[in-house]
């Protein structure tokens, strides 16, 4: 399997990754559990958020002590940003804090759905790309906006499977397929995966990867679910590359009819 996988890398902004599963670092019981889950997932990239340094609670754990930027590629996000300006400001600070150009852009529309605000997302993407960033973009499953974001220069298109943190799975597989067929950059389902079969479905649709947080962090046993997700992504990818059998309306016996006694 390892040989097969290494011959099928995921290439984002010119860099090759073996794993097609990107995991978040939010909502875990501890950063130690988070690190263990990320390792069990086989993840090479982890999303991180940028926040004010906590100056009052000195005992608070520091992410980079557990999920280290030497072991994982940090992908700074703009979670909590509702305008293009806030997102650009956040990612410029993230670049200063970490020194990386690869970022995850998400511009949200409202707190109830955390649905992406697409006009603001496109505006932010254009500003960031002009400023030298490599932008992986969280977006709606609208194939037209996906194309516009790719034309703007985004290095990965990341449509939602369903709402962030909902665990509802891939609600619109037809649109995800349309986006995959048209895109020339990686398409990564970001948000909505609830369990392993959801991740496999995303990969069977031809997606290049899956990004998830809550599905692992909110499982009863996050480390075990991380391992399940690793296998699901590999299985879905292999099934997609293998090419599934055609569906039929009636039975087709697997054993030969000739020689029946």
């Amino acid at each position, binding site marked *: 399997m390892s040989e097969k996988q290494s011959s099928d890398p995921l290439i984002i902004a010119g860099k090759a990754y073996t794993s097609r599963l990107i995991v978040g670092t939010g909502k875990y019981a501890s950063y130690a559990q988070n690190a263990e889950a990320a390792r069990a997932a086989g993840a090479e990239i982890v999303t*991180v958020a940028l926040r004010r340094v906590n100056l009052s609670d000195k005992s608070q754990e520091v992410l980079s002590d557990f999920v280290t930027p030497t072991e994982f590629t940090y992908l700074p996000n703009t979670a909590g940003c509702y305008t293009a300006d806030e997102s650009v400001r956040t990612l410029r600070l993230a670049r200063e*804090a*970490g020194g990386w150009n690869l970022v995850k852009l998400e511009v949200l529309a409202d707190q109830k759905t955390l649905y992406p605000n697409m006009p603001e997302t496109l505006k932010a993407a254009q500003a960031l790309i002009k400023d030298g960033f490599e932008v992986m973009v969280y977006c709606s499953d609208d194939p037209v906006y996906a194309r516009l974001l790719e034309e703007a220069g985004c290095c990965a298109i990341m449509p939602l499977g369903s709402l962030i943190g909902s665990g509802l799975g891939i609600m619109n597989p037809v649109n995800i397929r349309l986006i995959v067929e048209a895109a020339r950059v990686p398409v990564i389902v970001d948000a909505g995966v609830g369990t392993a079969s959801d991740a496999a479905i995303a990969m069977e649709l031809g997606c290049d990867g899956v990004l998830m947080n809550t599905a692992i962090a909110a499982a009863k046993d996050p480390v075990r679910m991380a391992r399940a997700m690793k296998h699901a992504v590999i299985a879905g990818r292999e099934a997609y590359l293998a090419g599934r059998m055609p569906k039929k309306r009636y039975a087709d016996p697997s054993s030969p009819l000739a020689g029946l006694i």
Partner: protein
Amino acid sequence: MKITLNGEPLEIAAGTTVAMLVERLSAETGRDPRGIAVERNREIVPKSEHALTALAEGDQIELVQFVGGG
């Protein structure tokens, strides 16, 4: 002189630079200063300029770092 640090008022000595502020706070909190980014009045102060940038009365300073997120 008074500045605002991460939304809270703070009294500091005149002549304090960004580098001195970051060093003082990382010593107080035990935080590694390397992963901290600084914004002064909405402009990023690059690490190379921390020691050259003196704070002024009324400055709005943001110190940020990476935390867990999805």
